[in-house]
């Protein structure tokens, strides 16, 4: 390959990244479902003809580098000759794509002067793909209960939309109009990527672009290897569990062994739970993707992802486990154990690089869904929300309060004013949850409280996690509080029926029912007695920490006047320090 100027390489590198961001903007701005445009449950990428990443922009971090496998699967099944200019292909099979059936992957080949030169792809979460329950069931036992299953299928054939196939796919959704709208947005994003990719090729020539990509990959790899080489060699282990799989009450174990050797990293998941009867399973492709997220959080988090980024990473996955599910495993909640995996990689490496990792965060998306019929608007309603919680502290900083979980990235919560305008739900409270952050020299972030009151009869679906294994602290820091959901239904006699649950599948709610959702806090970092009393006082004045907890957990006495009682603080810290 001819040598190429570093100037050209850098210009092409920026142009490819900008093209991916443009695709993402196109998808966000024209999608129909809030899950895409608000929660950013989507990703886009531009690939070369071997399905290597040229540029990507993930709305959802856990979607990092999970699109190329879809393209590769289609190539394996039908060969390169299958693709024609103007094609658009769609697929969602969990065992191929790695995620749940709600995630629809759409991609199209890019041709330049008759030659296949690359692909443009995206993935987006659809509200409904025809599962046994609306949205996402919490108690499925096999994939056939989870919706329509699509292998690589042409929905646009050489530029001509296949209306019959599109109808088949969208007809299976409870919300066919939204499905059609989202699909249009996805096709549009592919076309945007194709236009920009071809413009770059026309500007620089195909050979130059290919040579530049080879150099871009090499630069990414070099950059990452430099960072990995700085981590002490060794084998590091951590384990943790999910509460259950939604069907049985047994914990779901995740065991992570990280080996650093020179400039290579291996993540080995041997010892993790075998495939489960409930829906905490995912395809191999998504496990690799999650390991890439864990890797990216440690190695050059700010650098763009390219085809060279993950070359130093090896992933070992036990076959037949929750991380490499096989037919007919259910996969609706494919991400809960992946979020845990990402936290555990940080925990494993804490002894090696204590100043670069963070304590655990509250852990999962904490999904709460209300469905029912709205008499005022005379329409069915369906509101699915993920809930923010506390993040882990780290050397140099407190954990962030009330932030969305790691797999969800740039997700945005639903404004109360929008929610109440659309659905028969009143939000009674949306606040921080004081004292939920793990105590530490650096404090874990606090969880959140979101309290709903139903204005119509309905049903509740809950997928809440991490009560058995709440956010752990590091280096002497305490754990964050576990999550809690309290459901109170009014009885006819005016009294209340109260239950505490974390998972629910269609729990009936009567008009007036109150659901109080409290997410966990993040883990603390360093021993809480090492926290400066002045900072503990600030937390008390702002109400993140109660006066009682300041004394009990931090050994800092704050008087009724809001001032530090120095003598009592010294006594508390000496007595238990």
């Amino acid at each position, binding site marked *: 390959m001819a040598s190429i100027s570093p100037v050209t390489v850098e210009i092409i590198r920026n142009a490819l990244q900008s093209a991916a961001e443009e695709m993402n903007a196109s998808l966000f701005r024209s999608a129909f479902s809030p899950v895409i445009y608000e929660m950013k449950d989507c990703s886009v990428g531009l690939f070369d003809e071997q399905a290597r990443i040229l540029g990507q922009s993930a709305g959802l971090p856990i979607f990092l580098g999970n699109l190329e496998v879809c393209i590769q699967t289609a190539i394996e099944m039908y060969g390169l000759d299958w693709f024609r200019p103007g094609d658009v292909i769609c697929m969602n099979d969990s065992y191929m794509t790695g995620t749940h059936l709600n995630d629809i992957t759409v991609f199209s080949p890019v041709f330049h002067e008759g030659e296949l030169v690359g692909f443009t792809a995206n993935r987006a979460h659809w509200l409904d793909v025809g599962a046994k329950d609306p949205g996402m069931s919490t108690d499925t036992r096999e994939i056939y209960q989870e919706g329509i299953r699509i292998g690589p299928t042409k929905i646009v054939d050489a530029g001509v939309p296949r209306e019959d196939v599109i109808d088949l796919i969208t007809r299976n959704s409870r919300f066919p109009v939204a499905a059609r709208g989202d699909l249009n947005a996805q096709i549009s994003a592919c076309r945007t990527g194709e236009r920009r990719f071809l413009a770059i090729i026309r500007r620089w020539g195909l050979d130059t672009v290919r040579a530049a990509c080879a150099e871009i990959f090499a630069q*990414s790899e070099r950059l990452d290897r430099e960072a990995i080489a700085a981590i002490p060699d060794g084998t590091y282990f951590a384990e943790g569990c999910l509460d259950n799989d939604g069907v049985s009450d047994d914990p779901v174990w995740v065991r992570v062994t990280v080996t650093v050797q020179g400039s290579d990293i291996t993540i080995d998941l041997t010892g993790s739970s075998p495939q489960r009867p409930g829906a905490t399973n995912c395809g191999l492709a998504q496990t690799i993707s999650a390991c890439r997220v864990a890797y990216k959080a440690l190695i050059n988090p*700010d650098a763009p992802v390219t085809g060279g980024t993950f070359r130093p990473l090896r992933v070992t996955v036990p076959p037949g486990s929750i991380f490499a599910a096989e037919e007919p495993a259910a996969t609706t909640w494919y991400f809960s154990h992946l979020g845990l995996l990402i936290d555990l990689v940080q925990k494993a490496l804490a002894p090696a690089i204590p100043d670069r990792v963070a304590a655990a965060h509250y852990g999962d998306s904490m999904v709460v869904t209300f469905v029912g019929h709205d008499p005022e608007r005379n329409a069915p309603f369906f509101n699915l929300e993920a809930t923010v919680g506390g993040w882990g502290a780290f050397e140099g900083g407190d954990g962030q309060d009330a932030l969305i979980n790691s797999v969800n990235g740039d997700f945005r919560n639903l404004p109360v004013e929008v929610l109440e305008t659309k659905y028969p739900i009143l939000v009674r409270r949306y606040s921080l949850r004081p004292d939920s952050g793990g105590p530490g020299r650096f404090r874990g972030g606090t969880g959140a409280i979101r309290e709903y009151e139903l204005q119509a009869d309905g049903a509740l679906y809950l997928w809440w996690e991490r009560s058995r294994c709440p956010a752990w602290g590091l280096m002497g820091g305490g754990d964050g509080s576990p999550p809690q959901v309290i459901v109170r239904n009014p009885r006819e006699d005016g009294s209340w029926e109260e239950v505490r649950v974390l998972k629910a599948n269609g729990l009936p709610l009567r008009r007036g029912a109150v659901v109080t959702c409290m997410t966990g806090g993040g883990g603390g970092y360093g021993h809480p007695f090492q926290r400066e009393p002045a900072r503990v006082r600030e937390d008390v*004045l702002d109400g*993140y920490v109660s006066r009682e907890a300041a004394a009990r957990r931090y050994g800092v006495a704050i008087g009724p006047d809001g001032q530090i009682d120095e003598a009592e603080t010294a006594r508390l810290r000496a007595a238990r320090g």
Partner: protein
Amino acid sequence: MSAGLRVAMDIGGTFTDLVAYDPATGTYQTGKVATTPGRLQVGVVRGLTELVDDLATLGFLVHGTTAGLNAFLERKGARVALVTTEGFRDVYEIARGNRPEMYNVRYRKPKPLVPRRDVYEVPERLRYDGTVLRPLRPEDLRPLVAALRAGGYEAVAICLLHAHVNPVHEQLVRDVIRRELPGLTISCSHEVAREWREYERTSTTVINAYIAPIVSRYLGALEEELRARGLREPLYIMRSNGGIMTADVAREQPIQTLLSGPVGGAVGTALIGRILDRANLIGVDMGGTSFDVTLVIGGQVDVTNEASLEGFPILSPMVNIHTIGAGGGSLAWVEAGGLRVGPQSAGAEPGPACYGRGGTEPTVTDANAVLGRLDPERFLGGRMSLDVPAAREAVGRLAARLGLGVEEAAEGILAVVNHKMADAIRTLTVRKGIDPREFALVAFGGAGPMHAAWIAEALEIDTIIVPNFPGAFSAWGMLQTDIRHDAVRTYLRAVNQVDPAEAEGLYREMEGELAGILARQHVAGADMVFIRTVDMRYVGQEYLLNLPLSPAGDRIGPDDVAALVAAFHERHRSVYGHASERTPVEIVNLRVTGVGRIAPPPPAPRAGSAEGAPAPRQVRPVVFGGRSHPTPVYERDTLQPGHRFTGPAIVTELTTTTVIPPGWSASVDGFGHLILSARGV
């Protein structure tokens, strides 16, 4: 309005620029004084009195102020108390819960301007339709008033749930506080940003409250000083939306002064459009650390209704300014064997290596110096000389690491930064379905005209306009601006459920408010223009498209809805590439822009007397495309209408250098603008 001197004053971080226009003679005068941080009015008044002997002779005075923006950026705003609905104390701190830096486990939200201890709840609640669920009584506010009295606050922000639908409780809180604590500045969300989404509305109201006392004090002091020196005409202030307002209105709407300074470039770009009768222009302002892009589309400055500043959303119409970290001071560096430029900057200290102030890392300015594009002896009009050997040394070290020649590396640095700037323009245009090839570039700022030709080439733009006084362009632009105010009401309805009388009522209500504000600023009824627009989307979508109502007859009658919906589908197709005729469409917001037409007509051109190329001051070797070309250097002062010449050429003036590369030609039009054209187009 008298026919006296028209003056604009634009405060920058280092200098305050002034431009004066004398309508009697049609001539301009510029002034430049050092900005006086802390007491900005001192520098402003000094600059003004240097330029004008008797302020009583002024016919028009406009000011772009950074008082509010600086208070915000430096976090030196007022101590603010925030009042919220019971149960929602933390809406402001939780924000939208999102994490834009997705692989950063240490991500932190922007630090709230109001700490949690200063947020107070009041016992009240409205439903989404504005009906009262939990009534608020004046006596319920006693604890709040006591806390505010004890807290030593300067300002209060009030944002209650659903107040955009029914402000009754916000008004009650406001009236009680005003009565009990008359010294406090009060900002109500329904007055600052009457739109749904409680976090965004709270954020907007808090920023308003945060800067209100600072803006008020500054404008009060300035106006008092100017009046004492004889000013008779109103003092006008630039607004973030690209219009102007009188200083007393600005003190009531401080949020609208946030971009008062930076917006001048966009306004100037629009003025160039009016003078040259060009509808579509891209304004590019490249300075030492940043590159700002603004658009003029169809003769109008591109204004966004969803702006944000340092992560804080602002629901208030603002000129859409897209900024990236690319400027003369941007550093070139090597990462993993690859060349990178920016976003880090050498700043003013130590600055580029060629400034000779201890900088050793190569910058964009050093690359220009190496290539001979900057005159080492006459930099900044001769106030500073450049150390070209130091620039060569800095660029040379980088070149050696990349295996390139020094000139090759220098041209490479410029190519990378030029393409980055072109990508920034794509973000504002191509991403929204706008084709930049239909635009001309207006290049200003210290470095804009030096890079414009390459940026234009990357975007296939064939015309560049370098205005007069490119270093004081913002101030120049402010000279001929209209008064402009905006109003909004959230009105969520499917299009087939619109009640025309109700919509008309809301429009009239907004127009009544705006007419009142315009009248206070001495705008006669005949000079008031109201532009009605509507925010629409497909049912279920989040993002909005703003459409003018005028094609549908300026009302939302039953017969007009079909035309409006058709226009919406069309716009959606042009912006996103597809439309969905079968999907229902809804209205979200009704908006009115009220314009008070006070700007005089633009000046007339002078006849072109000159011909051919002027005499160059010198001819010196400059590198283009790897080769050294003997390149004529012209003084801007010597250029006359009618002059034309071809690249390579360089034009120098006080604070700016224009580079005309081979393949481009330049001419001077009847207004003195330097027009660059890609040859053969």
